């Protein structure tokens, strides 16, 4: 093992032993892990029902690890949209990870390269836990890593189980699975609507999308909503 990597790893292990034990962090993460597992399973079921090959569904969870972005991309595919529009929709939702990456960067061990790799473990839930465990303006890096690794495992496992059981279900439309997407987006949206700004952004985003949808190609309504969201956020 090369020297710098070993140094980073020992730093990481030392950081792991510091004040809050891994076990305590995992205990705090358990209820969230359960929710992420079920979310992963529902993603797996719906993705297979939308005719994505099961292996690609699991691979997506392994490589992307972002529930709302994967769900958004899948929603576009299920509604008959193109692959490019689906990637665009998912990527737009993940833009926020640039901001969370900046916020957690200083709390992670190692050089920039290692930190940018470790930052892959940030999703909304692990980031929120690290902010809660850390000091103001300094999220707790160890909480981010332990929670993120735990949630990564259950996310992939949940997707795998969903993708295996998905084909048992049958005709997606008869089962109302097409309605599962807007229902899921509403369920993801609702907890975010705390505060006047968020409500304003949501209404603005929906209005922008509906205004653009009749006369622009797919993807543009979402881009418009993103711009309106950034504009109305303060």
């Amino acid at each position: 093992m090369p020297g710098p990597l070993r140094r980073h790893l020992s730093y990481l292990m030392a950081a792991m032993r510091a004040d809050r034990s891994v076990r305590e962090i995992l205990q705090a993460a358990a209820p969230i892990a359960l929710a992420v597992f079920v979310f992963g399973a529902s993603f797996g079921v719906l993705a297979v029902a939308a005719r994505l090959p099961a292996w690609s569904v699991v691979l997506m969870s392994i490589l992307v690890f972002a529930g709302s972005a994967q769900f958004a991309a899948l929603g576009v595919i299920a509604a008959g949209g193109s692959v490019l529009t689906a990637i665009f929709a998912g990527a737009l939702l993940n833009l926020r990870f640039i901001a969370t990456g900046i916020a957690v960067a200083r709390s992670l061990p190692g050089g920039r390269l290692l930190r940018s790799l470790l930052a892959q473990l940030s999703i909304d839930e692990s980031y929120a836990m690290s902010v809660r465990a850390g000091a103001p303006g300094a999220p707790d890096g160890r909480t981010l890593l332990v929670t993120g690794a735990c949630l990564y495992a259950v996310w992939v496992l949940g997707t795998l189980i969903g993708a295996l059981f998905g084909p048992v279900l049958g005709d997606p439309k008869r089962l109302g699975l097409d309605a599962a997407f807007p229902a899921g987006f509403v369920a993801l949206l609702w907890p975010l609507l705390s505060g006047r700004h968020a409500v304003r952004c949501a209404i603005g985003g929906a209005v922008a999308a509906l205004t653009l949808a009749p006369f622009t190609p797919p993807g543009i309504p979402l881009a418009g909503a993103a711009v309106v969201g950034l504009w109305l956020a303060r």
Partner: protein
Amino acid sequence: MAGPLALALVLGLASLSFIMRATGPFLPNLPSAVTERTVGLAPALLAALVAIQLTGPHGLLHLDVKVPAVIVAAVLAALRAPFIVCVVAGALVAALLRALVHLN
């Protein structure tokens, strides 16, 4: 969806997500006024996704069983029901309305 197309979808989204998560440590500390704006992205995009899911082929609002499904899911979400409950309830409402009332 054909295998290569699905692979393109996965790799495209994965590489962009990787880049977005990886850039943070390489960027200087941006003024909080800039980073705080990104909190507006998720609500705006999710609301837009709900809206787009409710449009028909010509991009116009299309009233079908998805509308009551969304309303039921929103009410459940407001009552702090778990994600899976909202999704299953939404699908159930649509399936039942299709089966019982022959709505589209």
